[in-house]
């Protein structure tokens, strides 16, 4: 595993989770994460787009140009079947990691 894999994994996890709610574009994903985490998480655009493209290259998400409700052209991403599997996998792994870290913090 590469360094930063865990953090990058976290970013991918929240992106995949956001898209599980339905197709969305990059801007929508940042606002969604910010809103849902009540401002605790803020995703930098500079990391978001490389991450989205990496996910797309791995065929976990699929991007296509659509028109938004506000009549803007935007690239919408949606989960693929592989993406859904990866999300389930990553969610359980994350839960384990989180529990582990929590225990270490409590008893160390």
């Amino acid at each position, binding site marked *: 595993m590469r360094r930063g894999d865990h953090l990058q994994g976290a970013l991918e996890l929240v992106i995949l989770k956001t898209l599980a709610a339905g197709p969305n*574009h990059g*801007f929508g994903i940042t606002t969604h994460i910010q809103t849902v985490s009540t401002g605790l998480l803020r995703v930098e*655009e*500079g990391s978001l*787009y490389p991450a989205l*493209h990496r996910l797309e*290259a791995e065929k976990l998400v699929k991007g296509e140009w659509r028109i938004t409700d506000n009549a803007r*052209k935007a690239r919408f991403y949606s989960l693929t079947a592989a993406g859904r599997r990866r999300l389930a996998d990553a969610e359980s792994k994350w839960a384990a990691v989180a529990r582990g870290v929590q225990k270490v913090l409590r008893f160390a």
Partner: protein
Amino acid sequence: MSRQEEDWRDEIESHLAMRADANAAEGLDPNEAADLARRQFGSPLRTLEDVRSVHVGRWLDHLGRDARMALRGFRRSPGFAAVALATLAIGIGASTAVFSAIDPLLFRPLPYPRGDRLVSVGFSGPIDNNEFQVSNAYMEWRDRQAAFQSMTSMTAGAHPCDLEVGGAQRLNCYNVEANFLSTLGLRPALGREFTREEDRHGAPKTALISYPVWQSVFHGDPGVLNQVVTLEEERVRIIGVLPAGFLMPQLGELDVMLPEQWDERAARNGTIFLRSFARLQDGVSIEQAIERMKPIFQDSLHTVPPELRSEVKLVIRSLRERQIHEVKLASWMLLGASMALLLLACANVANLLLARAAARHKELFIRAAIGAGRGRLAAQMLTESAVLGLAGGAAGCGLAYALLRAFVALAPGGLIRLEHAHIDLRVLGFALAVSLIGAMLFGLGPAFQRRRATTSPMFFRTALVASQIAIAVLLLTGASLFARSLQRLETQPLGFQPERVVTASFTLRRQRYRPQAAQAAFYREIEARLRAIPGGGLFAMSDSIPPRGSHGRPFSNMRIAGRPALPGGGMVAFRYVTPSYFQALGIPIVAGRNFEESERGAAYPPVILSATLARRMFGDENPIGQQIELEADGRYSQVVGVVADAKNAGIDVPPGPEYYRLRLNDATQLGPGAVALFRTSLDTETLSRWIRREFAEVDGSLPVAIQTMEKRVDAWRDRPRFVAWLVGLFAVFGLVLATVGLYGVMSFLVAQRTREIGVRMAIGATPRDIAVLIQKRGLVWTGAGVGVGVIAAVFFTRLVRGLLFEISPQDPVSMATSIVVLAIAAGAAAWVPSYRASRVDPAVTLRCE
């Protein structure tokens, strides 16, 4: 990448727009909202950069991983890797070596700026193999033409000249017109070219020297400019140095370039023999130039002797064509042969990869099962082939270098400019391209097979083997054709006996022997000295020797006393010889008698005809005693003898008509150049030492070239020998590769059908039955390959008819030889696996279940 990149850019723009919308919704005015959106985003350029690196990075990552995997795989099966590598090295090495030899001839731009616009212009006639010019016609053409930007001329041949700088040196001088270099589009490396004034008759002498002469004689000293040197015992000022690598348009060896300095009136009325070259006007094609020059050519026909007019034509052709027409066919043929070998090598490697793919079926299946896409797997296979191709290419370059050395050693004069052929960036580029294209070709095999799992993989592999055999048959047929042609060329009668004949040729320095009497005195003296060499054997002198004549005169000039003109045209070769010439060269006198020594002082010496000329002039009549006129000068000579024909126009064409005149002791007849001949029992080394000593005692500064007649004749076979050896080498390579290919597939077949064979034997098949069963398969494939190969050979060998000497392209012996050789090799290749199959133990194979 650019459309994709635009897409990424649009995506960021759309993000900024939506963020600005959101900001505006919170009450900011549109400008502020957009500014804020930009600040919130950070650096769009940086983001774009990161997105790009995601894509490029993945690609490089895969490539690197595939390459590493390929290398690991090859390490795991070193036998496969070694055979594949050797096969590829042979294919790529042979084609690269051939390419490096023919590239300067066929493809590389000529070493003149816009050299494709340069043409050679002149008359074609029976006098010369190449188009020529004569000064009176040339000046008319030059003054009236409207097809060329400029037109220039040079004297037809080099003349030997002596430069006196630290001892005399014999160099090659050419006379050229003032605009010679500028027409070619060149400038001297140092100094300038000739001015019109310097080209005028009687102007002070000036010269340009070649780059190698500048380096070797003047040690590259720039002070050579305006230096006055002694050339041909005249004072000549050096005004420039030619560019390094300068190439004369007719490929002559040049050391010193001098202006023509014609006497204008003499040139307009005379027929100085020239070559002329021109640069086409922009937008004018060669065909258009011919159209434009035609009327001028017609007008200038009056300069041609009337009898020759019907035989003379106008020729304008590209300079490249002029330079390479003799070797063009051979060059293309060799390129074709090497490409065929390369194709065969690729088929072989494809087959190896297929066998490997079959063995790796499980690995690929697992990779596909764990999610590797079809594209990824194909990319992996192609990377593997590319790694193999590049490694084979590298090994091939090494082989090409060795082959090229071998070419030059084998036949120094095999192709023009062969000695200049070397491996450079262009050639390496070719090798790289060939390696990668080859990798695609053999990489496609396994890819094709995987996709079409339904077609029998055996069928595809069989087709590959059959095509290898077809190519091998083609190469073998070509090789035996060229070998037989070369053999005929070596054993054919020349009309003279070159064995034990030593020749010494020399050209006197014109200035030193200016009064012709001095020349005659020199010849008398040297003849007496050479004749007296002990053990020198039979001694003779001539102005030229076979297999080529240096002179020719129109047949139409010849007359039989008291009869009308003879029909027919063409040229007649002639030589001035001493009486012992025929005996020294072993040319039999078939009628009449030889010259006599006492006749050398006569005013009207007799003449001897060759058999062909005698037949042409007199038919069945006896020519002995007839009076004939030779040169339309009103002087008649008596025919005293007829000698057998001897080759006089090269060794690969039948001898043309020829007559012999007696070499007199008369100054007016003698030229500056001559050849001394010895039919001797002395060894060449001793004799040449003695010859040199005699020459040195008469004229210490005269260079003499000593060579055996056999070597001289043999030099004519350089090119056919080169072609024959090369195609032979390719055929051997091809045979080995095809045999290995057949063996590989047969072995695979046996391995695959072991169980079936076991069953057959268990139910009563004899080992013999099994061997026949297997061999029958091999026979069918070989038969199919041979059939296709023979058809291809019939088609392709027709194209090389011009390279064959006295042998038909459809020569059945060559065809049969190639089929027999291939059948033996294929039989051996099929025998080993079939033998192994017949030894299968049914008990063992059935227990494997």
